[in-house]
């Protein structure tokens, strides 16, 4: 541990208090050095477990110079020994506290840091402070290098003149290790033309060296060394608000607050007094590098209402305070401040602890993170300050993520689940958020805040979304037909989904295509399905990247969507009535032609015909259908028997045979089923050629039983059949109109 001593007067006394925080005895050596760092005297002491040892320093213990060091070593662990001390002269009432600190690490790197020693009183005391008449103050400032490397200091004096800040800079001073020096502040003031200056000045010391290399002590002391106003050097750093632990105006106390704008631009601040039962806000406007000194008793006495109409009740004599930007407590400001509670009657002056406000806890919400594929979650990054306030710093933080999520760069914290592995992580940092720290005693010259930055991380899960059907087309499915059904929505997955129809009877489907937002399926509604509302649900089987199966991630999503509906429109079961005309003429709407259909034909008439090369029995079939003629087809089968004779050169030679034609055909010349019409026509002319095996037929009887069937193409099970027959009887080359016949039914051919 290292400390700093100086002689405000020639025969100064002092003391060092050593407190052992351990349960073991500590042996300590206290060594006083001169302003070059050379050892002058030393004392060895033993401190009992949890005990304290007070070491008095007499004038003979101090070297002859104006300043020097106090170097303390001990044989215990770090922080085992707490050291404090003071300089005093009981005759004059002089007293000054001594700060001790551990020297910086020998491996520390050189840095630049500025320290402000605020409110150094110069000349005649401010009458408002109620010091005895003709009390004059002189500032002092001492520096000692406690590191093992050289350090430099460039002091600059700042004061207010005409409402603006003025400054004067001293040459840079280099301190070797252990070296100390009392700055000649009076000469600096005089050199700046302030010989007759009465008021307060600030001394800003720009230091280059290892962090904490220079130990500083400063203050003001009156000409009788009775009143000593020590100030703590404050590290200058941008911060958020600061809290002052204590102020007092009771029992002769008063509190002096000095605020210095360390920035090159003006700043608006709020100094808020907090006390039992209320608060009072005092606005401060500071020009660049300007200083303002406040006497809290003066603020109270003025009774000027603040922006909220508050005044500090006269009965209030103590409290705490905050210094913040005028907009919010987390607004960044660049000021140095110091508070001193003094008592003129008691000739005491003390420094108070203060707090550099900042975050003490931070968290991400929601926690744990869960987001569905293709869905988004707005995350928030929150922190809580030592003041109890919570802040949403989502927009100020830097976000990054990994796994199956994406982060929208334009919307901080906006997380979207994407296809991929189900694991995800989010991390966030805000490098501008000040870290809370409290400053008391030897830490007073630490920068405020000690640092910036807050971060957090959250692991998460990405699960498949519950499928949602937002559209279904068409709105009507015809029974007895296959229709392309298009489902639009989200969360369908990239694996083949399944569709569930209700009522399921008569409904079949096959997937044509599918992706996460659209499913196209061929849906067949069986003929005869009644008109009804048809509900459909989509069940996701997840995404290809996950393998098969729906992944909920332990949350409550369902693999199956809510139902959407369309309508089944029953088409009446098609029907047909088939008749056959066996004589007479063809119907007017029948455009078929016997002669065009067959070269043996010789007439468009129905019934028995004797043509040049054949005998026929022409018929016309007619089908009346319930829907459309074009939706019907025709088939025919024939059985029968033929028996006859041919004339082979005057010899009649018999012939006979069975007839079995299972797949007789019709074509466009014999079958008319025009679209848009409900009447079907078909023609046939069964019969016999007049030659058999190249010889003329002398006689023949041929009976054909024909079964003609019309079937619906929209309802393949719907068919209508007509059975009819044709018997031709020829004798002597002439067809018999009496024995030949054609009609409904079947004919016996056992002849």
């Amino acid at each position, binding site marked *: 541990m290292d400390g700093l001593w100086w002689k405000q007067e020639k025969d100064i006394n002092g003391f060092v208090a050593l407190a052992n925080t351990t349960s073991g005895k500590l042996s300590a050596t206290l060594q006083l050095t001169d302003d070059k760092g050379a050892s002058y005297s030393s004392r060895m002491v033993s401190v009992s477990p949890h005990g304290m040892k007070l070491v008095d320093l007499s004038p003979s213990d101090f070297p002859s110079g104006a300043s020097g060091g106090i170097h303390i070593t001990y044989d215990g662990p770090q922080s085992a020994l707490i050291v404090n001390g003071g300089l005093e002269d009981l005759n004059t009432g002089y007293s000054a506290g001594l700060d001790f600190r551990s020297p910086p690490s020998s491996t520390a790197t050189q840095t630049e840091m500025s320290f402000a020693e605020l409110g150094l009183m110069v000349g005649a005391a401010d009458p408002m402070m109620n010091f005895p008449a003709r009390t004059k103050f002189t500032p002092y400032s001492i520096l000692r290098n406690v590191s093992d490397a050289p350090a430099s200091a460039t002091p600059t004096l700042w004061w207010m003149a005409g409402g603006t800040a003025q400054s004067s800079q001293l040459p840079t001073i280099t301190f070797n290790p252990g070296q100390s020096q009392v700055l000649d502040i009076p000469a600096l003031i005089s050199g700046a033309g302030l010989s007759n200056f009465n008021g307060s000045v600030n001394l800003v010391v720009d230091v280059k060296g290892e962090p904490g290399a220079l130990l500083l002590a400063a203050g003001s002391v009156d000409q009788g060394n009775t009143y000593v106003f020590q100030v703590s050097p404050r590290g200058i750093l941008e911060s958020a608000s600061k809290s002052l632990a204590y102020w007092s105006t009771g029992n002769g106390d008063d509190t002096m607050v000095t605020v210095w704008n360390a920035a090159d631009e003006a700043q608006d601040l709020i100094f808020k007094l907090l006390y039992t039962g209320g608060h009072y806000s005092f606005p401060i406007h500071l020009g660049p590098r300007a200083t303002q000194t406040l006497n809290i008793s003066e603020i109270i006495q003025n009774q000027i209402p603040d922006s909220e109409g508050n005044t500090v009740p006269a009965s209030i004599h103590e409290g705490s305070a905050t210094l913040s930007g005028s907009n919010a407590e987390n607004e960044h400001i660049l000021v140095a401040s110091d508070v001193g509670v003094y008592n003129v009657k008691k000739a005491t002056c003390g420094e108070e602890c203060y707090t550099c406000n900042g975050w003490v806890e931070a968290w991400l919400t929601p926690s744990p993170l869960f987001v569905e594929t293709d869905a988004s979650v707005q995350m928030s990054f929150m922190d809580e300050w030592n003041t109890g306030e919570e802040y949403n710093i989502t927009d100020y933080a830097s976000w990054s993520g990994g796994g199956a999520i994406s982060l929208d760069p334009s919307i901080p914290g906006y997380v979207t689940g994407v296809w991929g592995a189900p694991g995800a992580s989010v991390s966030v940092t805000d490098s501008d958020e000040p870290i809370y720290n409290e400053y008391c005693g030897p830490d007073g010259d630490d920068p405020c805040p000690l640092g910036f930055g807050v971060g957090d991380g959250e692991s998460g899960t990405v699960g498949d979304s519950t499928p949602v059907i937002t559209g279904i087309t068409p709105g009507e499915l015809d029974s007895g037909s296959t229709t392309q059904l298009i489902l639009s929505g989200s969360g369908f997955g990239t694996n083949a989904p399944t569709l569930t129809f209700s009522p399921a009877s008569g409904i079949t489907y096959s997937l044509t295509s599918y992706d996460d937002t659209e499913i196209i399926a061929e849906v067949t509604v069986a003929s005869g399905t009644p008109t009804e509302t048809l509900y459909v649900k989509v069940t996701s089987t997840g995404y290809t990247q996950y393998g098969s199966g729906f992944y909920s991630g332990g949350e409550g999503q369902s693999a199956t969507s809510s139902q959407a509906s369309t309508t089944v429109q029953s088409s009446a079961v098609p029907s047909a009535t088939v008749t056959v005309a066996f004589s007479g003429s063809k119907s007017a709407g029948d455009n078929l032609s*016997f002669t065009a*259909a*067959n070269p*043996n034909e010789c007439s468009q008439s129905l019934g028995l015909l004797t043509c040049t090369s*054949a005998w026929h029995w022409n018929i016309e079939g007619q089908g009346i259908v319930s829907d459309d003629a074009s939706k019907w087809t025709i088939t*025919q089968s*024939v059985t*029968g028997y*033929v028996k006859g004779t*041919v004339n*082979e050169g005057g010899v009649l*030679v*018999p*012939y*006979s*045979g*069975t*007839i079995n*034609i299972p797949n*007789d*055909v*019709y*074509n*466009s*010349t*014999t079958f008319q089923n025009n679209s848009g019409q409900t009447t079907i026509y078909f*023609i*046939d*002319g*069964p*019969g*016999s*050629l007049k*030659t*058999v*095996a*190249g*010889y003329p037929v002398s006689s023949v009887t*041929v009976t*054909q039983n*024909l079964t003609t069937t019309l079937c619906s193409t929209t309802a393949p099970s719907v068919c209508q059949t007509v059975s009819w027959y044709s018997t031709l009887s020829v004798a002597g080359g002439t067809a018999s109109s009496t024995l030949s016949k054609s009609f409904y039914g079947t004919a016996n051919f056992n002849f």
Partner: protein
Amino acid sequence: MRVISSLMLGIAMMSGLCAVMAGQQRSQIEDLFAKLDSGVTNEEASAELRKFAADDPESRDYITKRLLVLIRGEDKGFLWYNSVQLIGQLKITEAAPTLAEALRRDHRSGFFTLGLDARLYDDPVAKSLSEIGEPAVDSVTKLFQDGDTPTRRRTTIVLSNIGSASAREAISRQIVNESDAELKAFMQRKLDRKE
């Protein structure tokens, strides 16, 4: 020695038996061919001959040779008509060139319906060529080159009945050169499967 002699005798008897049975088959087949020359017994004879051909390759070979000789005769009479019909039922591809030549004449015979006639299934020559199928395409297609209009019409129907890619391609090629407008339209309807 006796044993060996007995074995040798057995082999000799087996060979003789086979020769006797083959002769019996030929005799039976010839009897059936005789029945084929009738308009009354032809159905039964055809069925028996098909059975011989299906059961025994040698019989089929014999029947094939007999039929190929028979159809080269005058295209008249029950034997010729029934032989042509049997060739189609047995799908004897070697007969395709001879039958294709016979397609130059109309051989329609006996009973019909308009549907049967539309496919020339009342013409045993056209029907047999249709039943032989793809192997008959080249022989039939040649009729487009020098056949008269009725022959080209019959050729079109047979190729349409066969229905193979090469058969349809043959019709397509003929459409380009067909001089008879009505037949040309008929060919197109066949390709469009409207007839």
